[in-house]
C-alpha cells in the first residue's frame, strides 16, 4: 500500500510499504477513505520529537471501512464505516474505565520510554513516535487498529466523511479544552491559536454556554474563520494581548484561557528570542510563550486549559502568577472515546457542521506538498483532508 512516511526533519514521502495485517485478536484493519494532517503532525515534521524514526508511518486522524477483524472483535462487521480515535485504549484498565482514555495503561508497548521522561506513560497514539508506542499511522491506504472492539466508532451512512472525520481528534480536542474550562453562564473564554483545534474550541465554548469568546492568532484567514464562529479576535502582532484582554473584560481578565498552540508558539519580543535560542541548543524542548501569556492574562481563580501539546521541558513558567492568582490547570491528550456519542448528536441535530474547517482536499500522493502548505500557512491552508486512492493530478 501507499503510506506517508517520516523521513527526517521537514521531510515526508509517500512510500510503498507492506499492507498491515491482524496481529492480535482485538485488531481490525481499516481501509482508509479520508485522513487528515494535524498541527500535532507538524511537531514531528519540524523534528521536535527525538523518538521519531525514518520510515515511521504518520497520521492519526483517519476513517474508513472495516476490511478485516481479529477473532475477538464482534461489535463491527466487515464493510462497516468507522472513525478511529487517535488515542489507543484497552477499555479494561483503571483509566479507561473512568473515561480517561488517553491515559490507558495497556496500549503503549514502549511505556518504559515515556516513564523515563514523565514518570508514567500515557496511552499509545497512532503515528506519533516511538514514545507513544511507535504505532503505524493512518496517512495510508490501510491501517491496523488495535483494541478495535472499543476503538472503532460506527458512523450512520447519511453523514459524509467530511462531517465525521474530525471526531478522530480535533473536534473532541476542542470540545474537551472548552469543557475543562467549566464554563458558567456569562463567562468569557480567551483562546490562543486559531488553527483547527482553536476553531473547534471556539465553537465548543459557545455550545457549552460561553457568553464571549476572544480568539488570538496572526494569520488573517484563521482570524476570519474564528470571527465566522462568532469569536471576537485579536492579532497578537498588532496589539499587546494581555493588555487588550484586560481592556475587553473590564479589567477582570478572561474567566478561562485555552492554549491551543502548544510547544512551538511563536514568541514576540525578548522572551520569544530567548526561547528560540534555548530550544535550538536543546536546553529547553518546548517554547511556552502562549502558556506564559495565558497564565498572566487569566482572571483570578480562573482556569487554564491546555490542549496544545508539550513533550518535554519549559522554562520561565510564571509560577508566581499561577499560584498567587489561585488558578487551576487542566490538560491532557484528548479522551476521544468519551466524547464521540455526544459529538455525533451535535452533528445530527445540526448544531455544528465540522466540515467548516476544511480548506483543502488532496490525493494522499500529495502529502509532501500538503505538509508544506499547512506548515507555512500558504494558499490559506487551515485543514487538509487527504484522499487515498484518489489519482494525483
Amino acid at each position, binding site marked *: 500500500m501507499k503510506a506517508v512516511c517520516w523521513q527526517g526533519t521537514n521531510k515526508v514521502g509517500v512510500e510503498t510499504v507492506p499492507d498491515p495485517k491482524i496481529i*492480535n485478536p482485538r485488531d481490525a484493519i481499516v481501509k482508509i477513505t479520508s485522513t487528515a494532517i494535524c498541527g500535532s503532525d507538524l511537531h514531528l515534521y519540524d523534528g521536535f520529537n527525538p523518538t521519531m524514526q525514518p520510515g515511521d508511518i504518520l497520521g492519526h486522524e483517519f476513517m474508513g471501512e472495516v476490511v478485516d477483524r481479529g477473532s475477538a472483535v464482534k461489535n463491527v462487521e466487515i464493510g462497516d464505516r468507522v472513525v478511529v480515535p487517535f488515542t489507543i485504549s*484497552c477499555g479494561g484498565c483503571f483509566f479507561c474505565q473512568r473515561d480517561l482514555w488517553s491515559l490507558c495503561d495497556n496500549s503503549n508497548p514502549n511505556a518504559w520510554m515515556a516513564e523515563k521522561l514523565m514518570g508514567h506513560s500515557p496511552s499509545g497514539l497512532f503515528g506519533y513516535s516511538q514514545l507513544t508506542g511507535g504505532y*503505524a499511522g493512518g496517512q495510508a491506504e490501510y491501517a491496523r487498529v488495535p483494541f478495535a472492539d472499543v476503538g472503532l466508532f460506527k458512523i450512520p451512512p447519511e453523514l459524509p466523511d467530511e462531517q465525521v472525520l474530525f471526531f478522530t481528534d480535533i473536534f473532541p480536542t476542542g470540545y474537551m479544552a472548552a469543557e475543562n474550562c467549566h464554563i458558567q453562564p456569562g463567562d468569557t473564554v480567551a483562546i490562543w491559536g486559531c488553527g483547527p483545534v482553536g476553531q473547534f474550541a471556539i465553537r465548543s465554548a459557545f455550545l457549552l454556554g460561553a457568553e464571549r469568546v476572544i480568539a488570538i492568532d496572526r494569520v488573517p484567514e484563521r482570524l476570519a474563520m474564528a470571527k465566522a464562529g462568532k469569536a471576537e479576535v485579536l492579532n497578537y502582532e498588532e496589539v499587546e494581548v494581555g493588555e487588550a484582554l484586560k481592556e475587553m473584560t473590564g479589567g477582570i481578565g478572561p474567566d478561562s484561557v485555552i492554549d491551543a498552540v502548544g510547544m512551538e508558539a511563536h514568541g514576540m519580543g525578548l522572551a520569544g528570542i530567548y526561547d528560540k535560542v534555548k530550544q535550538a541548543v536543546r536546553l529547553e524542548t518546548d517554547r511556552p510563550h502562549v502558556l506564559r501569556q495565558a497564565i498572566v492574562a487569566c482572571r483570578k481563580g480562573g482556569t487554564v486549559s491546555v490542549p496544545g501539546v508539550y513533550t518535554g521541558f519549559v522554562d520561565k513558567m510564571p509560577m508566581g502568577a499561577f499560584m498567587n492568582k489561585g488558578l487551576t490547570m487542566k490538560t491532557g491528550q484528548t479522551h476521544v472515546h468519551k466524547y464521540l456519542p455526544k459529538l455525533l448528536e451535535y452533528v445530527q441535530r445540526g448544531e455544528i457542521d465540522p466540515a467548516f474547517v476544511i480548506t483543502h482536499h488532496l490525493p494522499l500522493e500529495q502529502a509532501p506538498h500538503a505538509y508544506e502548505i499547512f506548515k507555512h500557512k500558504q494558499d490559506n491552508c487551515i485543514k487538509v483532508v487527504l484522499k487515498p486512492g484518489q489519482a494525483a493530478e
Partner: protein
Amino acid sequence: MNQSIKVQKTVTINRAPQELYRCWRNFENLPQFTKHLKSVKVYNDHRSHWITSGVVDRSIEWDADIVEDRENELIRWATVEGGDVSHSGLIEFRPTPNDRGTVVRAVLEYDSPAGAIGDTIAKLFGEAPEQQLGDDLSRFKMLMEAGEIATTEGQPHGAQ
C-alpha cells in the same frame, strides 16, 4: 566472580487476586509475558523446568520447586539444589483497600557461579534488571486487563 542479582517491582492490576493467582500458578503461562523465558514445562504440582531465551545464543535451563503456595496470596519458588543456577522468586497478590484491583509484587533473585553461565545470566538480566522485571509485569497486566499484549511487531513501515 560470583554474580548476584536481586530485583523487586510492584504493579497494580485491575483484576481480582484469584484471577491473577490462577494465571501465575501455572508457570507455563510465564513465557507469554516474560521476555527472557523461552518455555516452562510443569512436571507436577510443585516441580517445573525453565528454559531462558533472549539476547544471547546460549540458553540456560533449571528445575524449580514451589516452596510456598498460599492460594490467591503468594507463590514462592526456588531452583532445585545442585543446578548451575541458583534462582528464587516470589509473587504476591494483595487486594487494594479501594476498588483498584490487586497490588502485585514480584521479587526475583539470581545467584550464579563465575564463568560462562554466570556471564550469560548477567547478560540476560544484568542490564537494567528492574526495568526488565517492570516490563514483564506490565505485559502481565496487559494480558490480564486487556486480554492481549500490545505490540507493533509485524506492522509495516517505510524505508529505515
